[in-house]
């Protein structure tokens, strides 16, 4: 048991390091732009440039076959690349992640030769950005409950309805779109998947203002949007099967320790500089107990990731343990931030530079509710662990084998 690379991994790592040393933008040049506002011109330019460089070197999608511009590598090699890339000022939070992680794989699985030939390369090179259009106001946790109507008209489809929680829609060129083509079929049977241009007439993107004031997501409205049948992915009525391919990728994507940035280390830093009723905060038994409780959860997650990487390194499928990250991280962020504000006392009610550590904990506390919901609520994730990991029986389903338009909807 150790934390070392295998000989092959070590070789790949040094190859990657050498390449990054030679090619990664240094702080002097456009690296600064990576720190700029997400979606801003400078940020986008820097992201595209870096993506192109990686793609040309074959590092953009390491597990993809060489033929489609990948490296023909293993998952562990992808992990190693990410680790090393993370040491450079190249941002992360990439605008291409969703497209390359979810949309393009779906396209490669279900698209025709032409589409694949046309769209994979530009996406890989960062020239075109893709987004994923599944969630709707009426279909959140219950994605298949979506209502967006697509009606066949000759060899094209007319689409009307609304999508929501679409990340990156504001700067996306294309999207994959899940629609309902047969409201008389059972819920999961009447769906069909398409891809379309986000610039198509009738597509309108509006940012969603979150409780925190920020806008990370969008609503996308569709009015008589025309999609040629040639842009259908999978058979008519088979959309749910196609979507599952995509969503499987999402779980992995979101599963990663999002929001883990604010943790025990920061809490200790805060406590070092605070006096409580009975003396230094870091000497307070209740504070120490909380630090320990949260530390063992964070450390547990960290070493769980090591176990997953080990499985990858040994060429095995990572076990279900990979699915627990978000359910641990999100509530911890909320509780830890609230506790930190309690330590700060009256000053904890202040924001930004008026609060200790530039309001880091206030920001974490405002962001936590979203993290507990986006990409699968705490409750849905527990269902997934119980059903897919532990194999417990599904809940009673009353929405099977009933025409979708006969389902009770509360409307």
């Amino acid at each position, binding site marked *: 048991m150790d934390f070392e690379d295998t000989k092959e991994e070590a070789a790949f790592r040094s190859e990657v390091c050498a390449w990054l040393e030679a090619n990664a933008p240094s702080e002097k040049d456009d690296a600064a732009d990576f720190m700029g506002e997400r979606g801003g011109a400078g940020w986008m330019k820097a992201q595209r440039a870096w993506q192109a460089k990686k793609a040309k070197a074959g590092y953009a999608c390491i597990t993809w076959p060489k033929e489609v511009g990948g490296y023909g590598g293993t998952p562990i090699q992808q992990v190693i690349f990410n680790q090393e890339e993370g040491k450079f000022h190249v941002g992360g939070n990439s605008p291409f992640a969703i497209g390359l992680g979810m949309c393009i794989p779906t396209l490669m699985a279900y698209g025709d030769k032409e589409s694949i030939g046309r769209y994979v390369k530009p996406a890989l090179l960062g020239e075109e950005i893709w987004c994923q259009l599944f969630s709707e106001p009426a279909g959140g946790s219950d994605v298949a*409950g979506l209502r967006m109507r697509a009606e066949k008209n000759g060899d094209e489809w007319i689409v009307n309805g609304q999508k929501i929680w679409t990340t990156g829609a504001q700067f996306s060129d294309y999207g994959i779109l899940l629609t309902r083509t047969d409201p008389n079929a059972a*819920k999961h049977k009447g769906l069909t998947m398409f891809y379309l241009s986000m610039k198509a007439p009738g597509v309108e993107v509006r940012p969603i203002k979150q409780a925190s004031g920020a806008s990370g997501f969008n609503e996308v409205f569709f009015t008589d949007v025309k999609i040629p049948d040639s842009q259908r992915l999978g058979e008519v009525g088979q959309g749910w099967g196609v979507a599952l391919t995509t969503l499987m990728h999402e779980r992995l994507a979101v599963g990663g320790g999002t929001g883990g940035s604010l943790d025990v280390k920061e809490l200790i830093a805060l406590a070092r500089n*605070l006096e409580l009723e009975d003396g230094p905060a870091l000497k307070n038994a209740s504070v120490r107990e909380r630090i320990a409780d949260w530390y063992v959860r964070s450390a547990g997650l960290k070493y769980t990731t090591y176990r997953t990487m080990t499985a990858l390194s040994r060429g095995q499928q990572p076990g279900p343990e990979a699915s627990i990250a978000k359910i641990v991280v999100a509530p911890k962020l909320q509780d830890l931030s609230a506790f930190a504000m309690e330590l700060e006392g009256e000053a*904890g009610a*202040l924001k930004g530079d008026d*609060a200790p550590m530039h309001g880091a904990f206030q920001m974490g506390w405002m962001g936590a509710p979203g993290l507990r919901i986006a990409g699968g609520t705490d409750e849905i994730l527990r269902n997934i662990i119980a059903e897919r990991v532990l194999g417990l029986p599904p809940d009673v389903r009353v929405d099977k084998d009933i025409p979708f338009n006969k389902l009770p909807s509360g409307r």
Partner: protein
Amino acid sequence: MNFDFSDDQKLLKDQARKFLTEKCTSKAVRRVLEGTQGHDAALWKGVAEMGWLGTAIPENYGGLGLGYLELCVIAEELGRVLAPVPFSSTVYLFAEAVLAAGSEEQKQKLLPKIAAGELIGTFARAEGPGAVTAKNIRVTFKGGKLSGKKIAVVDGMDSDYAVVLARGSDEPGERGLTLALVDLKAAGVSRRAQDSIDPSRKHAEIIFDNAPAEALGKIGEGWVTANNVLNRAAVLMAFEQVGGADICLAMSKDHAMSRYAFGRPIGSFQAIKHKLADMYVNNELARSNAYYGAWALSTNARELPLAAAAARVAATQAFDYAAKESTQTHGGIGFTWEVDCHLFYKRSRELGLALGPQRAWKDKLVTELELSNAA
């Protein structure tokens, strides 16, 4: 056993609810939350006209002299609608400080103005992050002059007067502290608005530079009086918190009944059911603790410190839980700006910190238990 409000008090509650439902919609709260105004002036005027500001102020000082149980029921209603007015700063804290420690002259001068809605007051305690303890109060009050800095003063920008906890003598620790009454429009006072996690209650930093001030109560009694005032305010604030927590539960329930997923109302899933049941239990326990606090407050019982701490802790925990889990129950829309969940999420935390964090109150509570040997 007569451990509930009287019919008259319940009638007052109904009137308050009717008035606020009409005059204090979430639109009104959002206007203050999103704007630069420190409070809703029209609502404040209305609240004054209803006579609520003088509820517990004796008639000879221009109040209604109704008492504290009446003030509790009004507080609960204000809490339900997140009323964006400087009610707690002015009534629970400033007026209580004046009533507790003010000279006859000070009472005559200030209380009628408060009752009439012509004076907004606040209470300034904290000077930085961490606990407010006798030894870390650095603002000085010497020779009628106040100097130093206070932070996170609720309604600080809108207030005409403030009661300031300051070091009034060279006596060490608590015995060196005094309450000072200061006109915030006087020379030597400068204020700066501070960003708050709940902008529907604005905070301010106030800097005193030899600002003219007068003692409120005896020199050296500042700490004792301040804690007494905080205990009284904690009970009243607990009713606001319980009111807010009940609305979070009601919103969650409505959403759980009307929102369908997987062909069923989400309220038919145990994950939601049990979450709401827990909210209900917390809220009931908080309400009962608040009632006991109300009894102790209205009778000046010697149990007040214990009752106030218990009411404060239970109400803070209930509102925190209800606000965060109501957002969770609402799912995606729950963390959008346009749905009201975040108004309660923000207020729950702000009220939980305004009179000092749970930790400090829990410590007081146990100290009381050690003395009383009750529990």
